């Protein structure tokens, strides 16, 4: 069976991992870290992804997409409140958000697919084989539309998504594998954009989720925004400058806010410095950890509500929890750790890197699916109740939240009018009484043979599969015939739209490959330039001044080639630089040998 990789498709960063002889490992590309920033930028050389795209956040904010996960499976109306924060343009087509990048617009699954493709390429380069199958993680509290959108993204990226699994439960698999834990554990997962809490019972290799809760709109992004808002307010007060008209500076403020927040997890105070537009000087401010915590306190507090609900749904008290596990970059904040510790009354675990643990768990699940790991089994739940709209606009629940999946419910439908040929069914997800207060998942029309009222009996089965995704089947109880149901998702892509996007992605694959070659050449050039600069600084005195000048010339030739778009030119100038620096390299090697030999006898080195 072909290898299955595990992918953590995050709001801020994404990772791919694989199982290496029973141990999950994350995959990193040459010269790079394993985390790929979930950022896509449209440049003059086409679309780029990850670290190089992140550089465009301030340079090219209108054409650089970040935090796209927040828009998965959403309509424009859902995100109206935060549109002002995003410098790129969002529109809507057929209930699906579109993101404008230059001439073209893309759906969130298409943007996510670009990130997935980058991860796929990394995995292929590292493992030396073609990768076509993956397990992708989603926040546990994601609804059906958001899960389906994630699956669509995988398909568009050329990946068969064998399983969508929940991030906190993935993390528990990685921990369980390592610790062989038994008992009841709580996984507190605060990422870049989403928050989840899952309570699990671990027994003899079975990971049974008892309850899950969360907030798909609470994460590190929100902390950054609070700090950024404070900085913007102060810049306005002190310099009379409204930066909201400068998208590039808005992004710079957001990035500085994020960095300051990260530093304050280690330090008690830090300095934020920002260059103001049009040479209007510089803004400097000291920010203390206390001030940051004052800003973020209410948000951290907000995460505790879902924790209490999950405990209540699992019928447990905080003291019943044996272990608490922290997942997601935002759990590095001391305030978060304190609050979680206070709620559960025990020190949380964070032995595994909170940025990597979800991807590692996805790799474990991938190994279970391919038959490698057989002693572990994850029994997850559906986070939200599923139901249909009944008379009077009330939601009638068919499958309650926290039901173990796969789960199914059957409902019998009939007609009220003689000769009626169809029954409209509206599927909902959520916990509220009224249909309009819940998430509309889909509508479909059940075909009914024209008969007297009340005679037709159509049994509809609603089945939530192991991915947490709904499947609908209908059966005429009189004839025993099954009927296929064409379901139009309320906030998702139709099958045809996904098909077309897959075709498009092949069409643009050629462009992508050349864009990728440029990016790789630039990255390699950057690495070579850095090491050469270092050699010059350390060993420049060992060679003649003319030689140093030659190296400097080659360096600047490479620097200008790097700005261009021709990967061959970049590689050519790299070769030139290596040639020019050959003397320096040899001189440095000789020098270090000489240093090493001093005070040693010949017999020691031969």
């Amino acid at each position: 069976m072909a290898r299955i990789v595990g992918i953590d498709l995050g709001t801020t960063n994404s990772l791919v991992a694989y199982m290496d002889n029973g141990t999950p490992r994350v995959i990193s590309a040459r010269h790079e870290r394993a985390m790929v920033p979930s950022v896509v930028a449209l440049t003059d050389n086409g679309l780029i992804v990850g670290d190089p795209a992140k550089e465009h956040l301030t340079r090219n904010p209108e054409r650089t997409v970040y935090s796209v996960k927040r828009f998965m499976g959403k309509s424009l109306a859902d995100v109206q409140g935060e549109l002002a924060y995003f410098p790129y343009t969002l529109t809507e087509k057929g209930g699906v958000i579109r993101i404008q990048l230059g001439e073209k617009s893309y759906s969130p699954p298409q943007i996510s697919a670009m990130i997935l493709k980058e991860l796929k390429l990394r995995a292929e380069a590292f493992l030396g084989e073609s990768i076509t199958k993956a397990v992708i993680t989603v926040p546990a509290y994601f609804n059906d539309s958001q899960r389906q959108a994630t699956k669509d993204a995988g398909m568009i990226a050329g990946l068969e998504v064998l399983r969508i699994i929940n991030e906190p439960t993935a993390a528990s698999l990685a921990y369980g594998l390592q610790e062989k834990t038994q008992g009841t554990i709580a996984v507190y997962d605060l990422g870049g954009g989403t928050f989840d809490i899952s309570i699990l019972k671990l027994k003899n290799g079975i990971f049974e989720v008892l309850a899950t809760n969360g907030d798909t709109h609470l994460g590190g992004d929100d902390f950054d925004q609070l700090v950024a808002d404070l900085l913007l307010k102060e810049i306005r007060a002190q310099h009379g400058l409204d930066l909201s008209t400068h998208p590039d500076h808005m992004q710079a403020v957001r990035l500085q806010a994020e960095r300051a927040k990260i530093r304050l997890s280690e330090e008690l105070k830090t300095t934020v410095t920002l260059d103001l537009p049009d040479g209007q000087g510089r803004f400097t401010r000291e920010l203390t950890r206390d001030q940051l915590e004052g800003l973020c306190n209410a948000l951290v507090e907000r995460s505790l509500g879902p924790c209490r609900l999950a405990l209540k749904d699992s019928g447990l008290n905080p003291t019943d929890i044996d272990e608490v596990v922290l997942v997601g970059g935002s759990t590095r904040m001391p305030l978060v750790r304190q609050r979680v510790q206070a709620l559960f009354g025990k020190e949380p675990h964070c032995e595994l890197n909170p940025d990597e643990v979800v991807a590692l768990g996805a790799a474990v699940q991938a190994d279970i699916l391919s038959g490698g790991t057989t002693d572990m089994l994850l029994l997850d739940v559906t986070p939200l109740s599923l139901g249909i709209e009944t008379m009077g606009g009330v939601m009638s629940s068919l499958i309650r939240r926290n039901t173990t999946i796969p789960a199914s419910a059957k409902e019998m439908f009939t007609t009220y009018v003689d000769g009626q040929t169809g029954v409209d069914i509206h599927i909902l997800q959520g916990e509220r009484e009224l249909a309009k207060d819940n998430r509309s998942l889909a509508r479909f029309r059940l075909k009914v043979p024209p008969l007297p009222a009340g005679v037709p009996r159509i049994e509809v089965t609603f089945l939530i599969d192991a991915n947490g995704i709904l499947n609908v089947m209908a059966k005429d109880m009189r004839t025993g015939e099954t009927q296929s149901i064409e379901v139009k998702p309320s906030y998702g892509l139709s099958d045809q739209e996904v098909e077309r996007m897959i075709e498009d992605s092949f069409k643009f694959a050629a462009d992508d490959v050349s864009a990728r070659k440029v990016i790789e050449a630039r990255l390699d050039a950057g690495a070579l330039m850095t090491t050469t600069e270092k050699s010059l600084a350390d060993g420049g005195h060992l060679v003649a001044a003319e030689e140093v000048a030659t190296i400097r010339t080659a360096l600047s030739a490479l620097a200008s080639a790097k700005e261009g778009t021709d990967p061959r030119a970049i590689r050519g100038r790299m070769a030139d630089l290596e040639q020019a620096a050959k003397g320096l390299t040899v001189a440095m090697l000789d020098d270090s040998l000489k240093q090493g030999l001093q005070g040693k006898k010949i017999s020691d080195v031969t």
Partner: protein
Amino acid sequence: MNGHTHNTDDRRELQMARSMCWHCQSEMAGEYFCDRCVKVQPVSKDLDYFTCFGLPRRLVIDTQVLEAKFYELSRAFHPDFYQNKSDAEQSISLGNSAMLNTAYRTLRDPIQRAEYLLDLEAGAVKDIRTSPPADLFEEILELQETLDEFRESNRASEQASTLRAKLDADRTNLEERQRDMEARLQQLFSRWDTLQDRGEATEQARTERNHILKDMRDILSNRTYVKNIVNDLVATIS
């Protein structure tokens, strides 16, 4: 959302009715797997949840045994272990897992278990009660009035806090009643099980059985009524 058709379902059901393996057509002796070709078999719709878990049809069961059997069957049926198998087997695995999860959820909870078993033994038990049980009539009526007053009151007012205090007391009281009813149910469950264990077909046994059944039905529907009132109360004051 995926629209799915399962046109092979009927054929399979027909074969199961004849106790034949859907795959190799041999006569089925194994429980959930064909003895000959080792293929997973769809769990029959007629199989009750107790039999599915290998448990006696009793109201008081060993939940440790139930959990162990649930884990064992999960390992046998879960779709994770059918990823490399045929579409037919994947579909059976999905259906069996969904059925297993429903069965476990039903039997794990003593009240749901009782409602399910009494339905099996004696037909639907759950009378949907629309008016308060006699012994609670006055109390519930008064509670409804307090709830209405509270809903109309200004939440910051002194009147509201007086009403809230009263509602809190009512809640404690009703929850106490609920626990009482559950304790009485537990006793009835044991008596029912003892009677079933004896398996006597005498007139006296039949009368006692009907008597216990009636009591259980009354308490079960009163309990549901009280539970809904408490939920309503909690939703209003929180």
